[in-house]
């Protein structure tokens, strides 16, 4: 159990924190409302607002850094958002090491990707709308991480969901993009319901939604409620972060423009789940089962992502599944409890650098290859795009955990912590993570070999629209962000571990407890793990070289393949399972309900009306128009009445 930090009031530079999200919000408003007038300069406004937000973030960061660690958690209450009865919600910001770390990641990587988009989207007629929605996304993401209560979190959570929907479906004329956007939105919604229920539960049991008060009163929750809250929060996190069983939307989200994939579906939005669990770690500290479930979900996901990544030929989808897998690592880390929260955030940061860099590299390749994504049509591109190749190569090495690049520090730390768990958990978590590290090395090596090395398969081909391929290096607005991110991929891990990221995060996440270092309780001795991981990764690279690098890569993908490859090509049947278990029964249920509504409910109402109408139609035939028949019925009625009276009197 980590101690609650003291919460101070933000003053001085930190009281400018509202600028962080107001700047991009202004950018979004201007871009989306100004219309065609903003077409010429709008994209630069988008870049400028995010860059300015980054500068503000840096100022607040240094301001906070000057304080002693116990005073680094500060809050800034802007205004009372709404109050209903005893539910009072502040529009307040929480400035602590965790949120500031996220602010720097979001605005920093965000500004780089905005800059890249200026070049990438230069020929797109919808560029202004694109930048407006990108700014909207940054605003929502900043609200998500800066809020000081769960309602603010939810506001940002839904905001990023909306922005993600808009950006995935950016190419509105493509049915596949529209479908992917809808799928992402729906699957996110499943998670959002979980988050909402968790918030309701917290409110119902504690009567407050402020982080400070909720975390201070975790002890008042009964075990069952606490478990329910942690599991529902996890469901929310799974939806947003593309974790098992809600992982199927993330690869489809690659229908959006590549900068979106880099910003939203690699570096920032999908990490919101990790943030959520890190932010709510006081709840997870108190629930061992909740933590275990998180770790299990992470382990399953990191394996799924790595396995499927090996089979795809679509360069962006391979990277997408790689993202799924790497976020699985982060979930595994935060699921390990105090031993892992900071490691999860650490991996999140390094991953933010190298995965964003990889996606931008992939975008650069696509830019050069007429927007083609099929790696089987690439090959030998290293000579044509040296900068892209170099930056992509560095990102690749960082991802597979090449010693002393970023991934090596963050991923190995997670695997070590996983192995340090007691009993079966150490073996299962550590083993799965190590295996997935080998698989990661395999699919990434395969990707690099197929794209940058080997035969130039594109020379004999034309793209789908009939043009020849003329690969070329991208303009400077695109290469510059790639170079910066590549530098981050190389140095971030070493720098962050040297300056002590876990110590910086301690006020938010608690001290990092390194179990198993001294007493060697885990499954495998601590010193062996890095060697083991590097060995597995090297093995993965070697296998990729033997199977892909040494042979000719056929342009058509082989139809007759082994069962595992077939399964992986079909996303391990995730879509089929979703369809069979959820979609089809849902459709059947809908049809049954429609039938019941048409025949049952409507039948009852319409049937009553028809019965009355039909009988009146018959009854009115009694009105014959003959006076004498009326007279007869009057007489009969009178006789009946008199008879009845007599019967009553004499009975």
């Amino acid at each position, binding site marked *: 159990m980590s101690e609650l930090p003291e919460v101070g009031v933000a003053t001085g530079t930190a009281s400018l924190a509202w600028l962080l999200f107001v700047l991009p919000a202004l950018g979004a408003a201007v871009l989306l409302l100004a219309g065609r007038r903003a077409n010429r300069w709008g994209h630069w406004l988008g870049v400028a607002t995010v860059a300015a937000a980054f500068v503000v973030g840096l100022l607040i960061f240094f301001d906070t850094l000057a304080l002693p660690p116990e005073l680094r958690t500060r809050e800034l209450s802007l205004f009372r958002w709404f109050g209903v009865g005893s539910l009072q919600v502040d529009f307040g910001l929480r400035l602590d090491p965790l949120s500031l770390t996220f602010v720097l990641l979001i605005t920093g990587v965000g500004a780089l990707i905005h800059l890249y988009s200026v070049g990438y989207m230069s020929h797109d007629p919808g560029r202004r709308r694109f930048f407006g929605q990108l700014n909207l996304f940054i605003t929502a993401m900043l609200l998500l991480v800066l809020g000081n209560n769960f309602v603010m979190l939810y506001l940002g959570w839904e905001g990023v969901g909306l922005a993600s929907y808009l950006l995935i479906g950016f190419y509105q004329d493509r049915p596949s993009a529209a479908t992917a956007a809808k799928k992402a939105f729906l699957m996110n919604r499943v998670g959002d319901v979980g988050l909402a229920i968790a918030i309701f539960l917290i409110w119902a049991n504690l009567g407050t939604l402020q982080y400070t008060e909720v975390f201070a009163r975790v002890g008042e929750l009964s075990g069952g409620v606490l478990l329910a809250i942690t599991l529902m929060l996890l469901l929310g996190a799974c939806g947003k972060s593309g974790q098992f069983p809600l992982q199927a939307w993330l690869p489809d989200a690659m229908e959006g423009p590549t900068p979106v994939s880099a910003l939203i579906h690699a570096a920032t939005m999908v990490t919101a789940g990790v943030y959520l669990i890190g932010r709510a770690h006081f709840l997870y500290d108190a629930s061992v089962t909740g933590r275990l479930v998180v770790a299990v979900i992470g382990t399953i996901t990191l394996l799924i992502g790595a396995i499927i990544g090996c089979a795809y030929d679509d360069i962006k989808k391979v990277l997408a599944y790689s993202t799924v897998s790497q976020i699985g690592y982060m979930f595994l880390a935060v699921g390990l409890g105090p031993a892992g929260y900071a490691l999860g955030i650490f991996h999140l940061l390094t991953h933010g650098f190298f995965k964003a860099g990889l996606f931008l590299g992939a975008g650069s390749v696509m830019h050069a290859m007429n927007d083609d994504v099929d790696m089987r049509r690439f090959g030998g591109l290293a000579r044509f795009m040296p900068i892209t190749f170099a930056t992509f190569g560095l990102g690749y090495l960082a991802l597979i955990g090449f010693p002393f690049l970023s991934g090596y520090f963050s991923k190995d730390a997670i695997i070590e912590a996983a192995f340090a768990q007691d009993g079966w958990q150490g073996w299962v978590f550590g083993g799965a993570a190590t295996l997935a590290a080998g698989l990661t090395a395999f699919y990434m090596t395969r990707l690099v070999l197929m794209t940058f090395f080997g035969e130039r398969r594109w020379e004999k081909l034309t793209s789908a629209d009939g043009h020849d391929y003329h690969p070329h290096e991208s303009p400077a607005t695109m290469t510059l962000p790639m170079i910066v991110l590549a530098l981050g991929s190389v140095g971030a891990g070493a720098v962050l571990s040297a300056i002590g990221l876990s110590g910086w995060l301690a006020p938010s996440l608690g001290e990092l407890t390194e179990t198993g270092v001294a007493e060697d309780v885990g499954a495998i001795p601590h010193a062996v793990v890095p060697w083991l991981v590097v060995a597995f990764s090297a093995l993965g690279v070697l296998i990729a070289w033997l199977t892909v690098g040494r042979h000719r890569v056929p342009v058509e993908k082989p139809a007759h393949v082994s069962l595992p490859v077939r399964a992986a090509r079909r996303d391990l049947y995730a879509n089929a399972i979703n369809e069979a278990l959820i979609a089809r029964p849902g459709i059947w249920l809908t049809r049954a309900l429609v039938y019941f509504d048409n025949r049952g409910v409507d039948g009852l109402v319409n049937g009553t009306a028809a019965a009355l109408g039909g009988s009146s139609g018959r009854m009115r035939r009694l009105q014959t128009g003959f*006076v004498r028949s009326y*007279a*007869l019925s009057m007489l009969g009625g009178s006789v009946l009445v008199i008879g009845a009276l007599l019967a009553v009197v004499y009975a």
Partner: protein
Amino acid sequence: MSTTYYLLLSALLFSIGAVGVLVRRNAIVVFMCVELMLNAVNLSLVTFARINGALDGQVMAFFVMVVAAAEVVVGLAIIMSIFRTRRTASIDDANLLKY
């Protein structure tokens, strides 16, 4: 003389009137049968007034007569106008007011 005979006569007249209303087609005859029924009722009203030794029944009979007189005026006028337009006084032909 027992009052019962008056009542029997009244019942007889009423029945004749009722049957006449039901079976005859000529509007004038039906009309006269209605009058017959009204007067049969008048007879029984007067008889009951006699039996009870009070004037209520007789007063009521006067009222009936007044109403009957008014009814004759209106009824004959209607029958006249029907006859003028249709050249017949059969009530079965005047059956337009129906479903």
